[in-house]
């Protein structure tokens, strides 16, 4: 049998797999990128439809995606089916594992919020004594963040806040609407910075790996992309102890294939990466693999109405826009009851008012909806959850997925740190909304289950110490110098920030390091 060998195998084509492909191929290194899912065809796969044409009038098939709160009948087919690739969590430890399996991963569908991490995250242990520091600081990523922000075309406003590091922005100098200005002013009185949000504009309506980075790799002529390739195992050379390729199966036919590679980059997404490493029984000399699973709490918030905007009185400029409140707790002073902090998404809408916020029905509700139309103001939390060793995943060999791969057991729960954080958030936002003269209709202290944020991080964390981490500061496995992990599984702490820009920055840095090591012959 003829033996083929590729230079670099990249497992996963999401944001970080795509970034690795771009950087390495632009440096002349041939890459083969496998993705477990099919190639998307936007023209064929989706169309505009009115909801009344859908079989379930928008409800979607009952019980189809119980763990994907983001699912609707419109988008149900884009998520991984929970029966095809099941997972387990104890009934009292719910976990919403929200997955996509198509080329590009979750990158065509993300929320676009684009933030840098600060040294409040990178050196969090120095700051409050909990957990571990990252083996890097903001300074180490400063050469890379601007390049990533350029690729993603990040809009934002330069604020000069150390917890919300400024970036290379398409500057947002848009004025606040009247209601937003009132909220900003209320924030100033409460010592809460209300600032402009930061978001990736991307290009041509998308900010995904498939339109921002993979095309650059394709243009070099050095990228081979194989969809429908489910990697079952990363293989190891018995003589060297190094990774030497992968076994994968074709998603549709189940044909088994063997691929040999000089270097392996695992970019399958936090929990799929960890699952694969565990099934392959590699990269765990530290015992840290699978542990310290974190994310952010989402879902708690307030819903208000701006009285001056009701009954059509709003007028131009009163409503509209949004804001981001970056972490403001546990910076210079210690908060009572919780460590770390939270950010807040603020929305001020001149669109229809949500009926569920109004405790009325029938004609009275119709009248209220007409009156409240265009007066909606709401907030939502993004709070850092602590990375506890006990929040972990294991592999279940008794329950396999449709391709015979052992599935994951996920054990994680939030603690009083998150509960107290959510209480502080609701109380603070309520005080600000009242000071701004808004009517508060709903206060929700309850946050969504772990995993809901789709920001799962950790389980293959970074450390300088091979006894404490799975990878070093270059995303390189401590156990196999030719294996790199580029997704958010390497994160040491969650931060309050959406992880995408930092993940891509780390992937860019790791790829350039890898390229140099290959050039020197060290790998």
């Amino acid at each position, binding site marked *: 049998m003829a033996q083929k060998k590729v230079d670099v195998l990249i497992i996963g084509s999401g944001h970080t797999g795509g970034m690795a492909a771009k950087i390495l191929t632009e440096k002349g290194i041939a890459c083969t990128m496998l993705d477990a*899912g*099919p190639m*998307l065809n936007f023209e*064929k*796969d*989706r*169309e*505009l*439809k*009115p*909801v*009344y*044409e*859908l079989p*379930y*009038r*928008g*409800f979607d*098939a*009952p*019980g189809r995606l*119980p763990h994907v709160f983001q699912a*609707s009948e*419109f*988008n*149900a*087919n*884009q998520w991984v*089916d929970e029966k*095809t690739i099941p997972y387990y969590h104890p009934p009292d430890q719910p976990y919403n594992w929200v997955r996509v399996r198509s080329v590009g991963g979750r990158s065509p569908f993300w929320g676009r919020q684009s933030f840098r991490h600060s040294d409040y995250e990178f050196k969090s242990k120095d700051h409050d004594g909990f957990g571990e520091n990252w083996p890097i600081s903001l300074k180490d990523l400063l050469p890379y963040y601007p390049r990533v922000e350029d690729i993603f075309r990040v809009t934002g406003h330069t604020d000069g806040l150390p917890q919300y590091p400024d970036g290379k922005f398409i500057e947002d100098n848009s004025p606040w609407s009247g209601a937003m200005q009132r909220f900003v002013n209320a924030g100033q009185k409460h010592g809460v910075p209300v600032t402009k949000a930061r978001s990736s504009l991307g290009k041509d309506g998308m900010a995904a790996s498939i339109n921002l980075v993979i095309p650059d790799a394709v243009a070099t002529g050095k990228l081979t992309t194989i969809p*429908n390739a489910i990697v079952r195992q990363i293989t190891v050379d018995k003589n060297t102890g190094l990774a030497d390729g992968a076994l994968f*199966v074709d*998603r*549709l*036919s*189940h044909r*088994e294939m063997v691929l040999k590679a000089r270097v392996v980059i695992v970019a399958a997404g936090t929990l799929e990466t960890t699952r694969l490493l565990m099934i392959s029984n590699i990269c765990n000399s530290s015992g840290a693999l699978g542990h310290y699973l974190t994310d952010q709490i989402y*879902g708690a*918030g307030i*819903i208000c109405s701006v009285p001056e905007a009701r009954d059509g009185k709003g007028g131009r400029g009163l409503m509209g826009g949004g804001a981001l409140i970056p972490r403001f707790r546990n910076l210079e002073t210690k908060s009572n009851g919780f460590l770390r902090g939270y950010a807040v998404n603020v929305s001020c809408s001149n669109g229809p008012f*949500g*009926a*569920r*916020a*109004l*405790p*009325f*029905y*029938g*004609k009275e509700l*119709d009248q209220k909806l007409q009156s409240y139309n265009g007066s909606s103001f709401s907030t939502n939390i993004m709070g850092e959850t602590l990375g506890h060793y006990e929040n972990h995943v294991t592999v279940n060999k008794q329950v*396999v*997925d*449709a391709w*015979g791969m052992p599935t994951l057991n996920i054990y994680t729960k939030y603690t009083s740190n998150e509960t107290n954080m959510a209480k502080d958030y609701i109380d603070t936002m309520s005080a600000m909304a009242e000071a701004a003269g808004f009517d508060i*209709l*709903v206060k*929700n202290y*309850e946050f*969504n289950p772990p995993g809901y944020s789709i920001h799962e991080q950790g389980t293959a964390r970074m450390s300088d110490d091979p006894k404490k981490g799975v990878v070093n500061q270059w995303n390189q496995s401590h156990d196999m110098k030719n294996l790199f992990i580029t997704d958010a599984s390497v994160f040491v702490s969650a931060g309050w920030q959406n992880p995408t820009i930092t993940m891509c920055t780390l992937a860019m840095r790791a790829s350039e390091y890898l390229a140099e090591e290959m050039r020197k012959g060290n790998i």
Partner: protein
Amino acid sequence: MKRRDFVKGLAVATATASTALGQQQSGAQAQNPPPAANAVDQGTMAVPPSAASSPQAISRVQRDAQVRTPNIPVSQPDVVAVTEARYFTPVRFATLVRLCELMMPASDDYPSTIKTGTPEFLDFYIGASPGEQQTMYNTGLDRLNADSMKQCNIPFEKADAKQADALIRPHLKGWMNDHPPVEGHVRFINLAHRDIRTATINSPAWAKAAEALGERTPGVGLYWHPIDSGTQTWVNHGMAQATPTTKQKHS
């Protein structure tokens, strides 16, 4: 001997195919027809390379590729048919019908829940739902009826607007997405309200009313079709092997 028979078989097949297709195709095309059904089996879907790449074969495939879907307007079944209610008991269904009438009565411009088939749709939907949701509805409808009997001495389906209001209003609550009220009956009233509104506003009859008013079609969204869905069929029919084939040793 075998080879001569094989060649003879091909010639027969070619002649037969030529005759069969000659009536359907022009003379030029009949010179390179596809193999007939009784040709010697050369493997599933195998065609002689010369036939596959012949100008006539290519032009036939290209012509097939240019076929466009005829524009035949289609309708939703609700336009001509009603859903048969079969899940809720008669009492519960009657309670649900009354609840629907109260939650979303007809307006001047838009149809009532009865006209949109909302109770029947919910009967179907809840009947197919996980147990937790069924229990919530069954318990909630029973409680409404029991409260009505207790306070007004009549079943809920007969309660007038004022009587029903006293049974519904105390349980209404504003809530945030993903976080409906937790307490049993309050949860039912608010979620049922949401479901009734959704099933009504998203119905074909509602869309028709919007169209008659000259308004935009409600609820237009970007629908994702199943992406390369072959896998599910294989999985469901057990045709794919989840466990790897036992590997034989090769010398």
